[in-house]
């Protein structure tokens, strides 16, 4: 609790004590001889609890603001005093203050748990100049400077490792708990924690351009992009107070004139004034969105605004890019089909043959083999573009390439059924086997698609620039509803526009891409998800929601968080409005009393805030 909150608490306790004593005296009939002078006794706790409300109301009047909760609360309680409801007047103020205090503590607590999520800002950087190492503000480090990051320290700026190896904890940025290994030459991103060894790093980006600053900027401005629900509440709040005040005025005047019982109707009007603050809504709705965005960012998903969270809750169609989004975007050896059953020799010979080539196919075979053949092991090496390579190695004349190459060498390899690329290997004119290279589907992609369907996404579509066969294979493996292949980037936009035209007015179409070459499509879709690849600027700029660690399984998570957030927000709106309207109605009919009005005001507010705080903890 802050100092201000503690003072309020002390005032509440003293007032409550005094008030309780007075109530006991009143109920036991000891105050009766005082008659109307009782008011003076009740004024004591009233003044103690209400003086700040009084000052605040006075300030409002000077500013010409009439529709203010403080002022209206004051009018209500003074009116209660005038008609002899002393205890009610004090109670309304007392509970109002208790509610306000509770609200302020609850909001403070959510603020803190949100700022804990943002605890990624480094406090200092160790600048290396010659032999000297000095601690400086990360802002003062220039691009090209060398910094030292000790074990356990937070990486202050984006850079490239010069010396040292270590394990980086990226959990604060990506939600990913498996540390990532870095060694000289690797790029590292600010905000991570250096786990094990000291690193010297050459800075590649100034602090204001670093990943940490970008992310922080994003999350902090996220709440300025308000969801439609939030905008509605802001507009609603503006008319709510004048409306309720007007009702109170009407109730105080018209029936009093008609019936002559002004005392009764004044009392009923007071009930309206006590419920005149839209506090429950104006605090709990933004808090709900804020909590939802916080919960997503704790899982490595950056949502750029409440409006996007709202949209994510309504996603019914998801369109995926293939390469780099559903697949890993790099070619890998997925099958070895040796003619004689010896996989290892097949791979080793192929690697020997390919060792001189820089073709992606050659690189993936070399990567699969693991060892790089020694220089000089290969001679008479030739590469024929569009066919393959030939070389003399290990005493054999090797040929590795596609069907065309085999045909030229008059070798008839068996058919291999695959959507990927096939590399045939021949040695001394003999067919030795085939190697299948594919762009492998990402881990968890199938799981992600299944979970998305469970979360309510009706249609999953894939767009790809790749060959029909390769695209269809991926689509079939993941169980997608439709696959459109061999598309140029501009045609992808066209496809998305067609899908946009087909969908219903309330359906939301999301596009998931890697954000670099997909920017136009990301912009065109209702909601753009980018696979963020830690700190890639293009992705962060173009998309509305950024998946920091490229894991497709974050998609169902964020849809679920969005849905739950919207549910909590709606619960609060209906609950708060429902109780307020009900109490007003009962108040007008003379059934509700002041106590119920206080509950409809601060009680509802506190409950709605507690409910909204649940968004912070959505799993």
């Amino acid at each position, binding site marked *: 609790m802050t100092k*201000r909150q503690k003072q309020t608490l002390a005032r509440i306790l003293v007032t409550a004590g005094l008030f309780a004593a007075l109530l006991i005296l009143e109920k036991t009939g000891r105050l009766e001889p005082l008659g109307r002078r009782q008011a003076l006794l009740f004024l004591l706790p009233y003044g103690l609890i209400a003086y700040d409300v009084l000052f605040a109301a006075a*300030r409002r009047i000077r*500013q010409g603001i009439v529709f203010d*909760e403080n002022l209206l609360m004051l009018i209500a309680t003074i009116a209660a005093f005038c008609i002899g409801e002393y205890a009610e007047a004090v109670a309304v103020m007392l509970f109002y203050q208790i509610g306000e205090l509770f609200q302020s503590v609850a909001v403070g607590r959510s*603020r803190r748990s949100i700022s804990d999520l943002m605890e990624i800002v480094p406090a200092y950087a160790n600048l290396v100049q010659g032999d000297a190492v000095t601690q400086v503000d990360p802002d003062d480090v220039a691009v090209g400077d060398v910094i030292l990051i000790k074990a356990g320290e937070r990486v202050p700026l984006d850079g490239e490792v010069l010396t040292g190896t270590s394990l980086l904890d990226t959990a604060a940025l990506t939600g990913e708990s498996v540390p990532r290994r870095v060694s000289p030459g690797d790029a590292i991103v600010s905000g991570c924690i250096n786990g094990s060894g000291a690193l010297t790093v050459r800075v590649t980006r100034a602090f204001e351009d670093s990943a940490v600053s970008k992310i922080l900027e994003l999350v*902090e401005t996220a709440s300025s992009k308000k969801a439609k629900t939030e905008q509605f509440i802001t507009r609603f709040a503006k008319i709510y107070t004048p409306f309720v005040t007007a009702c109170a005025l009407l109730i105080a005047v018209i029936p009093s004139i008609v019936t002559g019982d002004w005392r009764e109707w004044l009392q009923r009007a007071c009930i309206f004034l006590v419920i005149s603050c839209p506090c429950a809504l104006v*605090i709990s709705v933004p808090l709900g969105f804020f909590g939802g965005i916080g919960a997503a960012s704790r899982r490595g998903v950056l949502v750029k605004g409440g409006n996007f969270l709202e949209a994510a809750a309504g996603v019914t169609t998801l369109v995926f890019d293939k390469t780099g989004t559903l697949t890993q975007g790099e070619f890998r050896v997925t099958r070895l089909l040796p003619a004689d059953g010896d996989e290892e020799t097949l791979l080793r010979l192929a690697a020997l043959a390919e060792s001189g080539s820089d073709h992606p196919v050659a690189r993936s075979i070399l990567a699969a083999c693991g060892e790089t053949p020694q220089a000089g092991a290969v001679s008479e090496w030739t590469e024929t573009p569009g066919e393959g390579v030939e070389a003399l190695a290990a005493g054999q004349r090797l040929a590795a390439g596609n069907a065309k190459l085999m045909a030229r060498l008059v070798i008839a390899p068996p058919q291999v059924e695959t959507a990927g690329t096939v590399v045939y290997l021949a040695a001394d004119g003999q067919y030795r086997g085939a190697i299948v290279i594919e762009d492998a589907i990402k881990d968890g992609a199938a799981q992600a698609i299944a979970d998305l369907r469970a979360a309510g996404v009706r249609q999953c579509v894939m767009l790809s620039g790749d060959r029909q066969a390769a695209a269809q294979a991926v689509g079939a493996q993941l169980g997608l509803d439709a696959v459109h292949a061999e598309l140029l980037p501009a045609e992808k936009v066209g496809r998305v526009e067609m899908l946009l035209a087909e969908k219903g007015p309330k359906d939301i179409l999301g596009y998931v891409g890697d954000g670099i070459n997909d920017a136009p499509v990301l912009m065109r879709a209702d909601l753009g998800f980018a696979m963020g690849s830690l700190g890639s600027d293009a992705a962060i700029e173009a998309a509305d929601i950024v998946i920091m660690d490229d894991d497709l399984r974050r998609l169902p998570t964020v849809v679920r968080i969005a849905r739950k957030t919207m549910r909590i927000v709606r619960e609060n709106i209906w609950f708060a409005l429902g109780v307020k309207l009900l109490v007003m109605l009962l108040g007008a009919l003379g059934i509700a009393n002041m106590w119920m009005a206080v509950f409809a005001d601060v009680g509802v507010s506190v409950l709605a805030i507690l409910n909204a705080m649940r968004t912070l903890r959505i799993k």
Partner: protein
Amino acid sequence: MKKKFAMEGVDCAVCAERMAEQIRKLPGVQNASVNFLTQKLILEAEEAQLEAILAAAQKAVGRIDKGARILL
């Protein structure tokens, strides 16, 4: 120019909206918003008049809530 300032003591959401409204009315201010939850003022204003704007904004904030201020 767009700049962010930390605030303290912004204790009610309705007041935050009122503060933003008052600051938006100041000369040289293009846009302003006060975020009640993050306690931040986001100000879009003429760089040259920044000092005067901030002084006036500080006063406006204090008028609406005595305990609130912009941290400069």
